């Protein structure tokens, strides 16, 4: 007993806490389904090319616009490429662009928000006013102008997604700080002379993390949508990239000849967005602070 003083302290998610989260998640079938969908797609994204039955870029002029069959579960596209393989591999780009972009926004936005909220005064004003300006633009419009400026490329898409989302994360982090700042445990920390960085990152951040995670998953879902819309506007990722938005966009003129070209990637987008949204809903509850078993 005395030997193992603290096994897992200082870690953000201890195994014990993970068990708590899992137990809570299990109690919400809808959120559980959403989480399952999200992770299913995440696995697909990681394994995409390995599990895809065909090379996503391999063309076969003899197999153009084939309807779904045993050989091609989701049919083929206008280049004779296997739609199923492209949907599988496309998940990678969705997670790559949206995921990295959202993550970047989360890190930068949260840091700015923490800084603005805790340091306050001039910093707060300056940071928040600048971010307000970014928020003053409809997201798609801003993305359009920025991408038209920077030119469409994977990196720029990621950066644009990040720029778009930074203000939201900053706002949430800031409001969390403003809320937490008056909590008594923060005052207790100040009373024992904790450094500002300790208070921000060790005392506040773990508490601000759940709403940020929820926001991140919502933003991630929206980024799929955003990338797709940008593709429609001619600012998406370059071919032969199997990004779902690009696929859907390319498939539109083929809707009569080969509706499956559009429907399957569109369904994938929809499913992932729904799954992620449902997961986000559930996370709100799941990541609440640990409470006693059996209490309400």
């Amino acid at each position, binding site marked *: 007993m005395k030997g193992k003083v603290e096994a897992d302290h200082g870690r953000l998610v201890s195994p014990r806490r993970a068990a708590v989260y899992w137990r809570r998640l299990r109690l919400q079938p809808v959120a559980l389904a959403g989480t399952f969908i999200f992770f299913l797609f995440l696995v697909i994204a990681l394994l995409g090319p390995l599990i895809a039955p065909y090379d996503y870029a391999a*063309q076969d*002029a003899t197999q153009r616009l084939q309807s779904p069959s045993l050989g091609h579960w989701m049919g083929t596209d206008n280049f004779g490429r296997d739609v199923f393989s492209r949907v599988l591999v496309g998940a990678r780009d969705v997670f790559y662009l949206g995921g990295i972009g959202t993550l970047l926004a989360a890190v930068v936005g949260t840091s700015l928000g923490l800084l603005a909220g805790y340091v306050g005064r001039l910093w707060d004003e300056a940071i928040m006013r600048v971010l307000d300006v970014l928020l003053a633009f409809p997201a798609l419009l801003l993305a359009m102008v920025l991408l038209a400026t920077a030119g*469409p490329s994977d990196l720029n898409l990621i950066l644009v997604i990040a720029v778009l989302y930074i203000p939201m994360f900053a706002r949430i982090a800031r409001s969390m700080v403003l809320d937490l700042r008056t909590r008594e445990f923060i005052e207790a920390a100040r009373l024992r002379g904790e450094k500002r960085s300790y208070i921000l990152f060790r005392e506040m951040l773990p508490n601000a993390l759940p709403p940020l995670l929820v926001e991140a998953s919502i933003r991630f879902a929206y980024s799929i949508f955003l990338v797709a819309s940008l593709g429609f506007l*001619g600012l*998406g990722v*370059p*071919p032969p990239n199997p990004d779902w938005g690009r696929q859907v966009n390319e498939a*539109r003129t083929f809707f*009569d000849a080969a509706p499956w070209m559009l429907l399957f990637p569109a369904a994938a987008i929809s499913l992932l967005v729904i799954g992620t949204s449902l997961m986000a809903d559930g996370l709100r509850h799941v990541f609440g602070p640990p409470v006693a078993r059996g209490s309400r």
Partner: protein
Amino acid sequence: MRVNSSRRLHLLALGCALALAAVLFVGCGSGGQETTTSTQAGVTTTTGGIATGGILRVATEPTANRDPAFASARADILINQQVYDWLVEVGQNNQLLPGLATEWTSPDGTIWTFTLRSEVTFSNGSSFTADDVVYTFDRLRNPDVGSPLVGLYANITSIKALDPTRVEFDLKEPNPEFPSDVADYHAAVLSKTVADPSTEWVGTGPFTIESYSAEDRTILKKNPKYWMKDGQGARLPYLDEIQFVFSPDLAGQVEALRGDQVQFVAGLTSELVDSINADSKLRVLTGPSSAFHYVIHMRSDAGRPAADPLVRKALQLATDHQGLIDQVRPGLAVVGNGTPVGPAYGDYYLDQAPGYDPDQARRLLAEAGFAGGLTITLYAQQALEVPAIATVWKEQMKAIGVTVDIQTVPPDVYYGEGDASWLKADFGITEWGARATPNTYFNAAYITGAAYNESHWSDPEFDALTAQINSELDQAKRGELYKNAQHILIDRGPVIVPFFETAAAGMSAAVKGIELAPDWSRTLFRAAYFVR
């Protein structure tokens, strides 16, 4: 007396549902008598079996510039075609037909005299004379104005109005194809009373511009004083009005065609042709094989990967032209070769199947020092069929170990100033519209130092041949020279030409009298009419 709560809630639900339904049904109620589809409402008189009147709605991409001297978007050309006349018109088979000029002669190819039609008036009421022609062509060759034709017309030394119906062009060097040159789509005949054609739209064509908006719609009204008559002696045009409805989205344009909100959509891709063919109320119009083509240019100046002719030849040989057509535009194209001269140019066309030999290509590549493969960046506009061509070509190049990174850019960036522009990129896909004669391409983009030599290619032998073509009067000899020049292009030239496009348009089955021009943007609607 008391409505219980759940009942009231249901009533509320019902109310909302009804409101929504009402909105929907207001919509469908008037959906039947579609306000924008009253196309044939005005069709009344019949002359010689042809109904006159009516409004034709044409869907195209937005326009860019109203000044014919700077027309570049296909919509620009298509509208100009209805508003203006040319001295010489180009027929379905690239043959020259009388336009405002009824005949043209030259004793030696350096002095060209055009006889003009009399009793033609401009839409502003002024009558058309030789001075208008002088004004038009002086403007086109004026470097200060800067039209793209300045280079083509640099050969002209002077333009003189001999009398109101005769104009003489004096050239420095003999040019047997000069009548073709005056048929260029930029060379619409303007009225000398117009100082700025981009804002004053005065032409002698069958229609006049009633209202103009570059990104929404442009409305043309019948020009009642148009000079041309049909076979029965009735004045053209038959239609009362043409509306050009602009939409950036081809799929949306075709949807509008299906809904009879427009009656004509050109520039179709194969899959859209298939889907329109399936609709009994619509029909597909295809033109002859056109000069419209794409080139995949390979920058050939020193230090570039394609500077070595072996590399260029290897990429040529690795390109499966028929494969490209089958994947991108099945049934609506003719295989290209390494040359911009397509079958539309008749005698000048070098009917030689492109070589396809990946093994040889790989050997050549190895010989050039790229045995381990080669990675290149291909700039592709996010427009037309460029992304599709890039996609298929990339896959084809994979077979010989060439990795193609596709960089998509908006068209204006591609044709802009930056490093991604067509004149700077190592590899790029550029589309080229129809020109009256093939040497126009040679002079503009293939001879050493040409302004649009996107591949920075330089071949003295080719330059010399082009100079000869420019002034060779003998038709047969010119054909020979063209073929020699093309052999050089195929052998060591800087471009891959995937295919020559066959234009296709979708139109309402109720519309007749339209022939699709080889370059569909030059299609004329003056003889179009609605059948009852």
